[in-house]
């Protein structure tokens, strides 16, 4: 799985261990444990309040809301990596869109034009690549990992940004996941709720493809 020529950007993050399927799964478990650790005390407080004084139900309710909001905030942060950016100059984007289309097969090309996200199968699962990051849907389709990664050149049109990330991913998936910064790991349904409506079909397609990868 290690490519003949690793991603050159790895030199900039030499202190990081290379990602693997196991390290991603471990990160997912840590995210879940951390989220539970933050949410459970609020559930406990709500339960305790109700036991001690049922009239404190409004406060207990607020505590439960806190427990619900914490994972939602994490999912919102994750969804930011694939959130559409404000529209820029149409001319360069049309040119870039043509090049990106040449890099994609028919179905992913149509999906990208509709949703702004390029679907790319990999060894770790199914990737959705946007202009400011990527979402990895793990085999089975239940868990997603969100990665913030991009090109520093601020003048590039959106499709060129996606093409940059796509080429890097195709060269070295391990290196790509290592260079990128993790911003969320959790349930696919939770991420879906926080994504822009026009991008959700891409996640639906990626989850369906990831389910077929299971075992």
């Amino acid at each position, binding site marked *: 799985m290690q*490519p*003949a*020529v690793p*991603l*050159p*950007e790895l030199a*900039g*993050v030499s202190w990081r261990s290379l990602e693997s399927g196991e390290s991603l799964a471990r990160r997912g478990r840590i995210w879940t444990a951390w989220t539970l650790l933050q949410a459970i005390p609020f559930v406990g407080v709500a339960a305790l309040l109700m036991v001690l004084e049922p009239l404190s139900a409004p406060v207990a309710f607020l505590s439960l809301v806190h427990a619900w909001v914490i994972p939602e905030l994490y999912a919102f942060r994750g969804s930011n*990596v694939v959130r559409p950016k404000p529209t820029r100059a149409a*001319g*360069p*984007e*049309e*040119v*870039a*869109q*043509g*090049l990106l289309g*040449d*890099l994609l097969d028919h179905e992913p090309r149509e999906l990208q034009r509709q949703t702004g996200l390029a679907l*790319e*199968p*990999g060894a770790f699962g199914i990737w959705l690549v946007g202009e*400011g*990051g990527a979402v990895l849907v793990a085999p089975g389709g239940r868990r997603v990992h969100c*990665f*913030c*990664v*991009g*090109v*520093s*050149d601020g*003048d*590039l*049109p959106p*499709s*060129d940004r996606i*093409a*940059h*990330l796509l*080429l*890097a991913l*195709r*060269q070295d998936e391990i290196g*790509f996941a290592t*260079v*990128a*910064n993790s911003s969320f790991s959790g349930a696919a349904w939770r991420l879906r709720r926080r994504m822009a409506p026009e991008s959700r079909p891409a996640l639906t397609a990626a989850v369906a493809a990831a389910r077929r990868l299971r075992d």
Partner: protein
Amino acid sequence: MPRLIRMDSTGHSTLAEWTAEDTAAHEGAAGLFRAELERGYIGMVDHGGGKATQVVELPLDAELVLLRRPIAGG
């Protein structure tokens, strides 16, 4: 015809085209390619099927050689 393309703010720019028989055109393109690498670009050849490789010399037979900027975690 093989092409050398740089992804930039215009969408992309075709820097050079050459044929396997036209060694002069290929050498000219190779010079442009090296100059772009020195500016920090990374040469890529996409093979289809989800595979791409980095190239440090301009291949004679690749249909499309792309120049991209480095990526970084945000």
